[in-house]
């Protein structure tokens, strides 16, 4: 008969792992520790055929437990990490990095820096070349901490400057940190990846020292190089930089256009729409309408009064001028089936009126234009507003009544 049900070392440890997993998921740290203590003897067996061996399991699980367990101290944690570093040479730098992250989370910047320096000086035969990427990360994070030190020195200098002092030593130190930081940060952002924080810091350094050309180059690379993964933040950084550089609207708009394509719900869409509305070019104004409608498709924008006011303003302008009503018609055609229930229900009318008068005003204007004076949202809000004797609601009512035929043309 088969011996499949025989309990052996391997099955016993597998069962142990599943108990640990359950305990971790339920945040039962004591129980997880209890089972992990039983699991660790798996280290004495060689699992080189398995994808994840016991040493990696123990490192990851042990880290979680020690990090969350109420009775575990940072000292214990550090001691454990040091042990883990000796366990698997192929993971050495990864373990170092994770350790550094935990130290940073705990506010131990100096210890983190020490560990990074130590890791940077590690050499181990062919492993050094194999773990080249991790090494770059180690150096990048050290560069980041150098940036933090630089930033601190800079602030000291600025304060002193206000008081009229100027301390040469501080300045020298600051420049020293800059050099160290710049070298490492520059290296890492050459590799394709998501390096938001490194890019930001590097650009900050460059701008301070006046190297705008390099900064622009870096940001363009980060945003437009197809080897890099698509990253909305890259475009945000670029836009912010261009704004700081007081670039013409044209370049600002082109930077934000891509952001609109990638993330139509981005918070910068308000700025984008504002810029576009003011443009003299018809195409731009048309795009602006598209942008604001697209943003309001997202649930996160439903109660954003500013966004609604942008839309309301633009729509009011179009309706008043009676030019380009077809724009509204185009935008509305794909939305008229679901926007009424999504934005303009009677329930929402009541709620918006109660919670945010401005919001309800702007929305009522939009609703009145799109759905006519008979729409529940408009009717409720305008009624409430007039009851409260608020002038602008009376004006609103008049406006919508006056332009009611427009609705018929839009909805047609």
């Amino acid at each position, binding site marked *: 008969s088969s011996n499949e049900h*025989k309990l*052996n*070392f*391997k099955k016993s440890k597998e069962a142990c792992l599943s108990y640990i997993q359950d305990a971790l998921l339920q945040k039962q740290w004591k129980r997880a520790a209890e089972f992990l203590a039983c699991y*660790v*003897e798996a280290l004495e067996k060689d699992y*080189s*055929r398995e994808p994840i061996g016991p040493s990696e399991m123990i490192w990851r699980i042990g880290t979680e437990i020690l990090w969350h367990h109420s009775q575990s101290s940072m000292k214990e944690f550090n001691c454990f990490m040091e042990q883990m570093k000796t366990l698997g040479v192929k993971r050495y730098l990864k373990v170092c990095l994770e350790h550094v992250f935990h130290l940073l989370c705990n506010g131990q910047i100096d210890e983190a820096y020490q560990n990074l320096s130590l890791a940077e000086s590690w050499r181990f035969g062919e492993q050094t070349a194999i773990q080249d990427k991790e090494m770059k990360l180690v150096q990048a994070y050290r560069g980041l901490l150098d940036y933090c030190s630089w930033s601190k020195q800079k602030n000291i200098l600025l304060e002193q400057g206000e008081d009229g002092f100027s301390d040469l030593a501080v300045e020298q130190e600051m420049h020293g940190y800059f050099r160290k930081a710049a070298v490492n940060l520059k290296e890492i952002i050459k590799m394709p990846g998501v390096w938001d924080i490194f890019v930001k810091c590097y650009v900050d350094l460059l701008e301070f020292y006046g190297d705008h050309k390099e900064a622009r180059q870096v940001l363009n690379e980060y945003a437009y190089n197809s080897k890099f993964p698509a990253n909305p933040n890259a475009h945000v950084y670029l836009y912010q930089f261009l704004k700081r550089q007081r670039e013409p609207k044209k370049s600002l708009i082109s930077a934000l256009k891509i952001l609109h394509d990638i993330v139509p719900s981005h918070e910068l869409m308000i700025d984008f729409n504002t810029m576009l509305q003011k443009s003299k070019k018809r195409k731009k104004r048309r795009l602006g309408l598209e942008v604001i409608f697209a943003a309001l498709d997202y649930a996160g924008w439903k109660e954003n009064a500013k966004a609604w006011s942008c839309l309301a303003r633009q729509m009011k302008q179009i309706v008043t001028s009676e030019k380009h009503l077809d724009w509204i018609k185009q935008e509305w055609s794909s939305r008229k089936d679901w926007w009424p229930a999504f934005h303009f229900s009677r329930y929402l009318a009541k709620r918006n009126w109660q919670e945010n008068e401005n919001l309800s005003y702007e929305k009522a204007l939009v609703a009145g234009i799109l759905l006519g004076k008979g729409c529940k949202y408009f009717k409720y809000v305008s009624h409430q507003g007039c009851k409260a004797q608020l002038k602008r609601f009376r004006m609103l009512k008049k406006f919508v009544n006056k332009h009611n035929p427009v609705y018929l043309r839009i909805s047609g």
Partner: protein
Amino acid sequence: RDFNERCAQCSEVNWGLTDGGRFYCRSCHNVTERTREVVNTDFITNSRVQTISKGSRKQEKNDGGSEWYICEGFQLVLKKQVEALEALGVCPQMKDEILYNFWRCYLQKSKQAYCERPAGETVKALSVCESSTDVDSDPERPSLLHLLSLSESEGDLQTDCSFASSVSKVSESTSVYSGSVDGSLYLTKNQKDKLRMTMPMTLSFCYMALLWVREPITLSELLRYVVEGHIPYLNVFQHFPEKMKLCGLDLKIFCVESWPVYEEVFNKMHELAAFLDLPRFPDITESCFLHPDMLCMKYLMEANLPDELHNWTCRVVKKIGIGEVDFLTLVPGNKSTRKVKYDVLAVAVIVVVLKLLFLLDDHYEWLLSEHAEERNKNNTEGGPYFEFKKWYEVVKRSLDVEQKKLDEERAKYLWRCEKPLFYSVKNKSKVLKRRQMVVNLQNQFGKLSGSVQRAEKPNPSSFQLSWSEENTDGSCFHGHSLKGVLQEKRGLLTVMNPDYWLCTVKLCNEKLCGHLGHYKEVEFPQSYHFVLGLFSFLLRVQPSYIHDEVCMIEHKLFNKKLYKKLKYNTVLRK
């Protein structure tokens, strides 16, 4: 060989073996002149025996070790095990008179001792655990990897191989890597006719001795005591004396990483008994603990079933003849009789009785239970009527709790021990470092476990579930009456249930497919599955194992009906 002569003094047939190898009558202690000489060859000493007994060995090792043979190691293991059994209350004769004689007989039969050294077999005292540059590298000798792959894979074979491979990179062609003298020979020799000794087989020896002495310990109990740590098995080698250095292939032999399974130990025991040419074992009679009537009583109690069911189990036992002395007593080498698993047989009888009374088709038993519940309302005198539903709820609750505990324990087993194991001196330091780290981590996380300390070994107990009549919550069913499910017919109490379903219409050929019946949970009623699961937990065997026995009993019980042409496939009317 049968030694079935009646004793001259008391006419009993109840023989044991003295130290000197003579038969003695256990009833009256009359010692005969008949010795084992008739059965086997004389003890011929040879140099190997002298070496073992006189202890004159080559003290050539510079690490303080000395020569030792694998069978010496096993002898030590057996010694430890039988001492543990003595501590559990087994009679002291078992050690010296029974077990050791079995062992010596085995050594002789397998030509490891007490015999002429077989021709052509030379034991080269080869280098041990050292670097191999000075050894004749004989290309015909099997490599280390090959040797490892030959032995039964007890543990994680590939992991050991990778240990070995890291070692054999140094010396691909050397073969002997063992602390013992004959470790490699032990693994390579074609042992088909000689029944090579293994760790599970030590338990077969123990069980065989227990059976000979008819101790009240079943095989499932024995194995449970092993797992609970009352009998040394895992890591027994740490008790070997210092001079017996264990490394290399010895580990393959002595370091087990799995718990032995009932079938394994049981089958081996019978093989062993036949190999040793043992005579008919002492009779298992009605007063014996291992008799089905006795064991049924025990298991009925443990399963919290009414005592009244015992009448029924006895009736079934009698009807199919499994209480007969000749059926129960072991005659080694007799291939025609079915080997009796006393504990499994007893629980299978209980299962059949439950099926007889309650049908267990997921329908009838609940109906009967409701019926009994109704009758219980008007039942003022005597004990309450047994209600299947109540029993099920109570037992299931306890069983779930115990099963959960057991599952957790199994996940928490610690397999390693303090004594370091290494394949060669070369990776000794690595092994020691690892061990140190493991101990550190165990301490670190053990402290974080909170107040839960590893509980002391529970005292060995024959009963895993216990129910007390003193409990007023009605959770003990021993005293309950079966009247609720019986009816009077012509002055006799018979079961109300008129039907029975067979587990299998046709028995499979055990030799071909290993089973008599095939058990799949989904194909059988849940109640049946529950009952099997209960006894499976108590005996620590697979449900299918019990199921096979149930099939066997049913076919014996309904023998006549089965030979008639059956109109219905599975449902019989009694």
